[in-house]
């Protein structure tokens, strides 16, 4: 999967350049709620349950200030990603102990025709493994700027 292909899984309505939340749980709630507000998910409680169970399995923080909470849920129609940035940083139980600033929440249905979920997750991890890329994502304030980063 090419990096620009990731753009199609994001949505302006699920792009939060300044998260209000001050804790991990609140941030998960805020991101799930943006899927609901965008009309992409009908029942946020079911999604939140799945996302929190996934965190119980092991932190979704991948170090360097990034977390990718993710999972398949019957409540999702398609693969979709919400982005949130926390300037102050959130405690996420990362292995490196650093607070999380960039959060990419990835939802997927139980079955998809094109099997894009795992490739999307893998590509995100790869893109965010580059320090220069990570830094750029902390600077974006608009969805257009955000998608431009994925085009380059």
């Amino acid at each position, binding site marked *: 999967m090419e990096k620009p292909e990731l753009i199609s899984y994001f949505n302006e309505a699920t792009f939060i350049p300044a998260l209000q939340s001050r804790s991990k749980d609140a941030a998960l709630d805020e991101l799930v709620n943006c899927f609901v507000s965008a009309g992409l998910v*009908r029942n946020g409680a079911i999604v939140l*349950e799945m996302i929190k169970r996934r965190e119980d399995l092991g932190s979704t923080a991948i170090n360097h200030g990034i977390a990718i909470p993710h999972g398949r849920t019957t409540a999702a129609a398609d693969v979709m990603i919400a982005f949130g940035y926390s300037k102050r940083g959130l405690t996420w139980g990362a292995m490196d102990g650093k607070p999380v600033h960039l959060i990419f929440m990835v939802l997927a249905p139980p079955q998809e025709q094109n099997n894009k979920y795992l490739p999307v997750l893998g590509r995100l991890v790869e893109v965010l493994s580059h320090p220069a890329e990570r830094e750029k994502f902390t600077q974006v304030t608009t969805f257009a700027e955000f998608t431009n980063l994925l085009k380059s």
Partner: protein
Amino acid sequence: MVEKIKTQIEFLVALQDLDIMLKEIEEVKELGFEVNAEGAATLTRARAELVQNIKKQLLTNYERLRGRYKRAIVPVKEDTCLGCFMRVPTSITAQGRTDMEVLNCENCGRILYWLS
């Protein structure tokens, strides 16, 4: 458990999501995500906790359907059951969207979940 889920269909969907997660632990690990030492045991305990909230008859039906089909609960999209692709009567759609009742497809018997 998240206190926000309350109805039987919500508990059933949460159970199916957990069963899917249990199956995909290894794939997630391969991508580099952390999975704690207890791994599947953590989720298995969570599953046991979750099923206590589901009526026995519904749980039996869920397990039976899971054995027969790959997924016991399937989405309804544009009034169509995405398990067997037969149309769902519009008369039950309004009910289904409230998440208050557990409804089955009249054709294939799978449990229905309305996506929108």
